[in-house]
């Protein structure tokens, strides 16, 4: 009748007390921070590490995203890191020894205009050359995969087809965070909750430690992983980042009998929807236009989201919104992340994932840990350096969104 959720392990992690110093202090105990800690320990043998979380572990964007995992990005640089992440996802349950409800149910990205079709086909071909599974589907194939999508011409912007990545899917965000937390803690990493970083100590151009609500902590290296607050934290070391922070909302319905076997995304109509394991519809809404650090968006965004959802899925009409919530996303000018070194020695930054950070979790943890361990970028994250904004070598994932005729 109902798909029961798997049991958690009996033990997750112990609350650690901060020590006076660590080799590496990771600021931010979200998915990225925890994954970074895990791969620092596992891949590089660095275990004298603290993960500092100002609230509860993985309580920021990790707890608030719509859990979509895919790697079908347009540009080679993006496909590189997201595909690396997807390959890690494919072995992550075994690696972490934790059920993550990773479900490769495929993702459809719908096209609604001839230009959408061109952009989509372009992405499919780019993906294939990069070894990313991708297909172009005609509307009737979309209907076969997801029968509740309205592919009739009556829709204001009819579905003209879709790209499909079969290996894409969803996972249970909390379990992913806890899986990384548990595995990192098992290596001896200190996971410290309710510990807000209030300052970064910089001496002679080098970071030496952090100040926190639980006292100062010396650090050989400091790795920022504070999505939603990246600008605020980096500013403590005098580092300016090209970020703007905006609320992003999502919502769930009540539990429903299965109707939606895959994940559907539509940029043009602004819908992202999947049906989670328990049966609730999980939907992402749009981003608030104005900068804000309130973890809550404006309601008209939700209303628009519902209108868009019913355009594509008329059967959702009498489903109910049970809960809405918001996170704060850091958005870069080219909609690609910033991962790497900063002008301050031994201070590293990982930020600017916008709406797409969850799917990258293992991939960025892997590359960022390498960057921190070696003091130089991992090849897969190297294109996402801070200095690309000076050279102009952007990884412009907005690019394909340009609309004009």
């Amino acid at each position, binding site marked *: 009748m109902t798909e029961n959720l798997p049991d958690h392990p009996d033990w997750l992690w112990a609350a650690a007390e901060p020590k006076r110093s660590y080799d590496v202090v990771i600021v931010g105990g979200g998915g990225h921070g925890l994954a970074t800690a895990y791969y620092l320990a596992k891949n590089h043998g660095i275990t004298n590490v603290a993960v500092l979380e100002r609230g509860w572990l993985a309580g920021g964007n990790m707890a608030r995203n719509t859990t979509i995992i895919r790697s079908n990005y347009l540009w080679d640089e993006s496909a590189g890191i997201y595909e690396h992440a997807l390959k890690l996802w494919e072995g992550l349950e075994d690696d972490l020894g934790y059920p993550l409800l990773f479900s490769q149910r495929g993702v459809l990205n719908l096209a609604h205009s001839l230009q959408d079709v061109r952009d989509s086909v372009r992405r499919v071909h780019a993906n294939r050359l990069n070894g990313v599974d991708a297909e172009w589907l005609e509307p009737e194939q979309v209907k076969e995969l997801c029968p509740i999508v309205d592919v009739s011409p009556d829709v204001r912007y009819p579905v003209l087809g879709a790209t499909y990545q079969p290996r894409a899917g969803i996972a249970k965000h909390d379990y992913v965070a806890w899986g990384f937390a548990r595995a990192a803690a098992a290596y001896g990493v200190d996971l410290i909750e309710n510990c807000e970083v209030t300052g970064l100590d910089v001496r002679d151009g080098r970071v030496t430690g952090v100040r926190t609500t639980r006292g100062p902590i010396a650090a050989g290296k400091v790795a920022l992983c504070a999505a939603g*607050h990246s*600008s*605020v934290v980096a500013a403590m070391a005098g580092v*300016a*980042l*090209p*970020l*703007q*922070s905006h609320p992003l909302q999502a919502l769930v319905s009540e539990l429903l009998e299965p109707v939606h076997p895959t994940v559907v995304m539509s940029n043009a109509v602004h819908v992202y929807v999947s049906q989670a394991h328990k049966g609730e519809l999980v939907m992402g809404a749009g981003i608030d*236009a*104005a*900068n*804000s*650090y*309130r973890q809550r968006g*404006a*309601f*008209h965004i939700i209303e628009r989201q519902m209108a868009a959802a019913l355009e594509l899925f008329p059967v959702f009409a009498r489903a109910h919104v049970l809960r809405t919530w918001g996170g704060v996303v*850091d958005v870069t*000018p080219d909609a690609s992340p910033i991962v790497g070194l900063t002008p301050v020695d031994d201070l590293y930054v990982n930020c600017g994932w916008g709406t797409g950070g969850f799917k990258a979790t293992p991939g960025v943890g892997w590359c960022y840990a390498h960057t921190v361990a070696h003091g130089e970028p991992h090849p897969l994250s190297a294109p996402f350096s801070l200095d690309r*904004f*000076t*050279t*102009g070598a952007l990884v412009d994932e907005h690019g394909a969104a340009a609309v004009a005729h």
Partner: protein
Amino acid sequence: MLLIPCPWCGPRDEIEFHYGGQAHVAYPEDPAALSDEEWARYLFFRDNPKGRFAERWSHSAGCRRWFNVVRDTATNEIHAVYRIGEPRPVIA
């Protein structure tokens, strides 16, 4: 849904407005004289404070005028509204 006091039309719902990001970022006097770093700073770097932020809005579904707002990004409270060209007001 913020209630934004347009200096010309009075308080109106947020959906009538278009957001314009940080205020008081002047186009450089002589872009050719800037280094790549300085130009990049103008192109891509904007303040992103958690707290009071001077920002631009345009009443796009109303009078279509641009104006400035000081808003607290932690609470969304609007502290001041003033016209383009006026200095950022000092708020206690």
